[in-house]
Structure formats: C-alpha cells, structure tokens
C-alpha cells in the first residue's frame, strides 16, 4: 500500500494535485506540502481559528480536516482573496481600522469574516461577535476587528446595491 494519498482538488480557483500522508491535517498539507502558510497553527485542536479556511463555502478549521478529505472539493484560503491589483474589501477594512496588532490571527479572522458576509451581508454587531467567537485574538480586544467587519459589510453591500 502506498504511504501517501493522491489528492486532486481546487484551491483558490486553480486545480491542484498533491500527495499527503493519511494522518496529515489539511493545515499541515497547506503549510508543509503546498507552502501556503497564510493559515496559522495556534492550537491544532479547533479552538483558536487561526487556521480558518472556506471549504465548499463552509468555514472550517483546517487543523480539524484531513488533507486527504480535499479530494474533489473547492477550497478558499487567505492567499486567494486579493486580486493582483486590489485587496478584498475586508482586507482593506482591517488595514483602515487598524484591526490587527501582531497579525497572527488576522488571516483566520478575515476568512471567517468573509464566510459571514458571504451569507449575511448586513450582520448586526451581535451577529458579528457571535460568528467570530471561534477565532481568538489576544492583542486587540476585538473592538477594532468588529468595527472592520462592520465597515467591510457596508462597503460590500453598497457595492452590491450599486
């Protein structure tokens, strides 16, 4: 039996193939096999959200998904969010609102915020806080992160209505 699994999948809109060990998590595959290090390991057991990615439209902790499970699926990571000449409005909002300090949790928060705004373009403050409760930030106290998501929601929903 081969020691590695062959996986064909889509990451950030592009077809990707890789080999991984059955025991490797998606986070390990992203970081160690594909060198997509935007997803961070903060706890490796689903408590901190620093490794958040969007799998078939659903926000997941990549440390809790096996790399082999990606077969035939579609994955969005922080690396795929910006256009070559333009940041995503959530990324802009994080910069404008100074919504990061050390920045280690930032990719996870941005992916979580994207998953929220994809399904709820005009969340209340409570909905934002509820949704982001799976992502830990130790630096900011969340104030500026919540404001950034509020700002991004305004920008994206006004873009949609325009």
């Amino acid at each position, binding site marked *: 039996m081969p020691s590695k699994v062959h996986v064909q999948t889509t990451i950030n809109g592009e077809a990707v193939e890789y080999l991984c060990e059955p025991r490797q998590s998606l986070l*390990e595959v992203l970081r160690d096999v594909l060198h997509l290090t935007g997803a961070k390991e903060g706890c490796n057991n689903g408590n901190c959200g620093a490794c958040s990615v969007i799998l078939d439209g659903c926000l997941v902790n990549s440390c809790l998904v096996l790399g082999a499970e990606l077969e035939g699926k579609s994955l969005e990571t922080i690396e795929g969010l910006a256009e070559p000449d333009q940041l995503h409005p959530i990324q802009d909002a994080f910069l404008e609102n100074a919504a990061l300090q050390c920045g280690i949790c930032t990719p996870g928060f941005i992916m979580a915020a994207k998953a929220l705004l994809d399904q709820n373009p005009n969340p209340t403050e409570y909905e934002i806080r509820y949704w982001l409760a799976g992502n830990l930030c130790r630096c*900011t106290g969340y104030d500026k992160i919540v404001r950034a998501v509020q700002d991004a929601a305004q920008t994206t929903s006004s873009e949609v209505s325009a």
Partner: protein
Amino acid sequence: MAEKKDYKVVGTRPIRHDGLDKVTGRALYGADFQTVGLLHGRVLRSPHAHARIKSIDTSRAEAHPGVRAVVTAKDFPAVEDKIADLGEGAANVKDLQDNVLAGEKVLYKGHQVAAVAAIDPHTAEEALELIDVEYDVLDPVIKVRDAMQEGAPLLHEDMRTDEMGEKSDKPSNIASHFQHKQGNLDKGFDEADVVVEQEYTTETVHQGYIEPHNATALYNPDGQLTIWCSTQGAFTVREQVSEILDIPVSKVKVVPMEIGGGFGGKIQVYIKPIAAMLSMKTGKPVKVLMSRADVFEGTGPTPGSYVRVKMGATKDGRITAAEAYLAFEAGAYPGSPVGAAAFCVFSPYKVENAQVDGYDVVVNKPKTAAYRAPGATNAAFAAETVIDEICEKIGMDPLEFRILNSAKEGDIRVDGPPTPRVGFVETVEAARDHPHYLAPLEGENRGRGVASGYWPNFGMKSSVAINVTSDGTISLVEGSTDIGGTRAAVAMQAAEVLGIPAESVTPTVADTDSVGYTDVTGGSRTAFATGYAAYEAAQDVKQQMIERAAKLWEVDAGDVQFADGVFSSVNGKEQELDFKGLAARLDETGGPIVGRGTADPNQPGPSIGLHVVDVEVDPDTGKVQILRYTATQDAGKAIHPSYVEGQIQGGAVQGIGWALNEEYIYNEKGEMTNASFLDYRIPTSLDLPMIDAIIVEVPNPGHPYGVRGVGETPIIAPPAAIANAVYRAIGIRMKELPMSPGRVLKAMGKI
C-alpha cells in the same frame, strides 16, 4: 524637552507598513520559515510536577527510522554560575540551562527533558515515545503559601533565602525577602479614622499569545549558528543562546521573523538552544515547534500570588498609612515579578507612611516570565479594592479619592525614587467627565466599578539606521521586533523630523548582524526608545542633508535652514529644495547618506490609567457579564492613536480575562489540567462589548515628542475595577481571581 507644536505625521493614522503582508497571509512568522534539507525537532516533557531523573535511555529513539539526533542535558557544555541579562529581567545561566533541558530533577509538568530531530514532525513525535526516562517521583508544592511552610517539599535543596541581603542558613523555597519602608507606619495607622485590611489570592495565568514558540537553527562547521525565530528580542536570544551553549555572541546570528504575540512571554528561550543543539549534532537545519499544550505547560506564565494590603485614611479621605505583604510564585526557579509589584502597589498615591514586604518563592510550576506590567496587576487587585472599601466606609466618590491622594511630581515612592510627572489626575478627570461615568446604571445585579493602574515603563537600548533613497524616501533599519504596529510608530517619528509622509519610510526589522544592539520589545519601550533612536537617526540625516544643500548652493551649512520639509538658504542666495528634491541630488554632492541613531533614554515616563466598568452578575450561574467598559490612559503623545487605542483595548481585555476566567487549574499531583484554549478560556468576541479607549496626553519630558510607552498599563486595572463593580452589583467583595462563575456562586453562598 518635549516640543509642543502641530505635528504633520505624529498623531495621524496612516496604514501600517507591514499591514498588507499581514492581511494577505504573506507575512512570514517563525513557524513559516522553510529551507532546504530541513529536519523537524520535538521535545519530550516531564509528565511529573516534581521528580528526580534516575536515568534517560535514548537508544530506542535513536534507532527509530527517520530519527537523526537526540539531545539531553548531557549535551550541554559546562557553564559558570552567573547572571545573564535578558533585557526585561535577568536570570542565572545555570537555571536557564536547567530550564531548557532538565538535569538532575524535573521541577514542573512540562519541563523539557530531551529532544529529537527527525525527517518529519510525526516521526519526531513517534520517537519521543521511545525515550525511556526513569523518574523518582517527589511530592510537588504548587501554591505559594504552601511552599513557604517549613517542611514543604524543597525544589532546590541548596537554596537559601536571601533575607534582606543576608543569606539564611536553612534550605527553603523562599528565594528572597525584601522590604521597602518609609515614614512611620504605626503613627500613620494611629492617625487613620478608618483602616481596611484584606487578603487576596490570584492564580497562575498565561500570556496566551496565539502563536506558539518556534525556532529553526542551522549550525555550520565553521562554528557560525543562525537562528530564525519569533521573539520579542533577537539580541536577548543571541545572548541567552550564547550563554547556554557557551558560544561567543559574535558566532550567533538571530533572524527575527514576524512574531505572533508575546506580552513578555517571548523573551526567555526554551526551544531555541534545543534547535541549535540538534543542528550541531546533525549538521542540518532543524525546526522545532511547540504545541499549544507545550506553551501552557512549558513556558513562563505570570505568577499566582498571595497579597495582603492594609490601608488607613482619615474620614475626609487622606491616606495616612499603607502596608503590603506580597508573596509571589516564581515558578521552578527564582525570579518572580514581585519587585515590580512592590513599586507599583501604592505608586499612584502619595503615601508618607508605608511598608512593603516582598517574597519570591519557588513552586513546582513553569518558571514565570514577564506578562504585561508583570506583578502590577496582582498588586493592584488588592490595593485598588481596599481603596474602594475605604471610599465606601467614608462615603467618598472613588474618583475624588484618587484625585485627592494622587502622587505629585517629586513625591517619594515607598521604594525610594521620586514620582515623575504623569497624568494621573488628568486620566481620572477624563473618566469622571466621560459619558460612561455620567450615565446612570440601572437594573438588578448591576454595578459600576473603577480602578487605576500604574506602570513605570522602561527605556533601555535601541539602534536605528536610516538610508536616504534617491526618490526622496528613506529606508529605516531597526532592531525592535514589531508585535503591535511599532514599525509605523517608529517610522512616523523619523518622518516627522524629515518632513516626509509616513508612507515615504520603509521600515525593516533586521537581524543581529545587520543592526546595532537593541533591547527587547517589552517594558512598553519600543515607540518610546526605538522611536527616540529613529528621531536621532533622522536628525543625523537632516544635518547631513543640510551640509549637502550648503555644498550645492555654495553657502555655509549654518546658512541653510530646514523647516516644514524644505531646505532653504538664508544668506541672500535664495534657494529652496524639499527633501525629495535634495535626495535626488546626493550623487552630485558626495554620494549616499546614512543616518545613525542610538538611544538609552533614562526618562521613560510612567503611564497610568483609570478604568470604568459596568457589570451584571447572573445570580443563578455566577457569570459576570461586562456591559460597558471605558479605559483612560496617559500616552504622553500618541504617535499613531489607532495603535495606542489598540494597546489600551487589548490590555484591558487581557485584564478582563484574568479577572473573570483565566487560571491554571491543578490537580493534587501538581498537573495542570486545562492546557488548551478550550479549557483555559481567554475572552472571545462574544464575551465583550466595545472597549472605549480614551487617550490622555500629558507629554513625557524625557522624549522629543513626549511619548510614554502604553503597552503594559492597561492590563493592571481591570481585575480590581471588575471586583469593585461586582461588589456594587451583589454586595460581595471578591478576594480571589479569577471571579469565575463557580467562585462567585461560592462567595454568594449558593454552592
């Protein structure tokens, strides 16, 4: 020396220079480092809180396929018994070594015992299970007061108490006892109309940075060691690794990667020397990463403590005397922050008759490390709630009490030095006049509390180099790792001097071979001291540019002025060039310009804050909900107000976590039972309201722009402010941290 004027860059809110990399996932943190031929290291940790190591057999691990090396304490060089400067604190080198890999004893669960390098992380983990360690398990001692008892299990059989400078003759877990005294304590208490004395306990808490410790090391046959890692200070890593492994500092190069939080916890080294030792044995680069459980169990938290505070006041609200007894858990080796606690405990106030006793006590827990204003939060929890009780007894508004008793410039602190100018009254007034404090708080089980927090701040050494680029921008090279936006705060101070926008500065955090010595990003010093060095470097550039303009215009340098970003000559030959215009002409006037600045400023200027919090206590569950939170703080001059607010908000929330949830929970074997983010519960977004951060600016005379460090102060007040609010809500004084639901219900007599 603080200039008072309208600044063009200082006080604005530009996008931080490293922001784009950090919102796109491109910023490279320590664990993101990759290189060819990389091996992966993992560390075996003690399963026991206290045990003698009888033997370690690594042969089965060494024979495991894929394993390249195993190291234990036997691989250390012999080192001298001496004190190493860690930047923020100091430590005995033998203790440092023993903490990195245990020698004769393990002193806490999680203590590093051995390490493996293998072809991949999983193989290294497998090999750890093949290391056979035989332990002689000893009784642990976990709590500070237990450890101080005669007959308590001894961590270090040869340790003698330093009793106010004299060595005692009996072995003890009390590493030291010191005392500060001034005035006449008995007379002070005699003059009091009301005296309050209470005792308090706090549990061990962790900094809880989201990024675990990491290190990649490469040792070359020529003796040159390179370490890529996340750290609060590349130079302290260089110093510690050099001491622990007995290598000259010049042979160690530390490359600081981006760092995912530190709060004081990423100064001491744990796995960096191990990565180096594994690389020495294998000749390959070795990356060692900690897991979250490793971080909780194996790295320095901040101490649990027992604090007793007694204060007396007249009925018109004057403090007449104050006494504090501070017993702090150092963890496995001496060095708790009890000294800092002693100078912070009463420092906001003028207290003429005072005594403070401090005890540094070893227990079977990880060696404590700095955590944001280390020691001050434990002390303030006690002092600031005793003050609240006094205010209640004499019927005085707690803010008026603080204004009345605030220490003025020159008032002598109990530990000796005079109080520098700091905006204590101004922060209290800002809170008093804030809509939050003016708004009535209604509803059952709700209460409002206030407390203040004081931190002296640190200066220490920094170096900055500035290169002028021909397009009118500058590159700024600094040694301070950027944990919370300091690239921007430092760059902005240089930009202000040179009359260029913040965006025209490209800041780089350099490795230890590429920039002058710089102390840690800690002690709230980076915007202050590295900012000062940047100011000096920019002044150097300015002077050189003036000389170039003079050469260009064939005038004396003394006849060239620089104002509002424009160089001009003033001797009749009217000439003008802005910074950009002159930068474009460096080639014709003598070539490149490099500005240099170093700083070791001795007037960091303390920072002080006053926090107001509204809580609601659920009488059925004991849960304390934060309804509203306002934090004022004297920032001296906020260089980038958004990131100053961020420090205040983040610090306040760490304090809220400490107040309400966070603690190391131990079983009777001395094992931490909650070493995960699920069970060690730091605040989430859902636990909190917005945190209103109010910046007060009373310039620090020790900095050209009046900057005071802001990072540490905001964590100090929350536990006391919340305890005072809980009292208003349910009529019970909480004297233990955290005020978790169980503790609140117990205090209410419900369980």
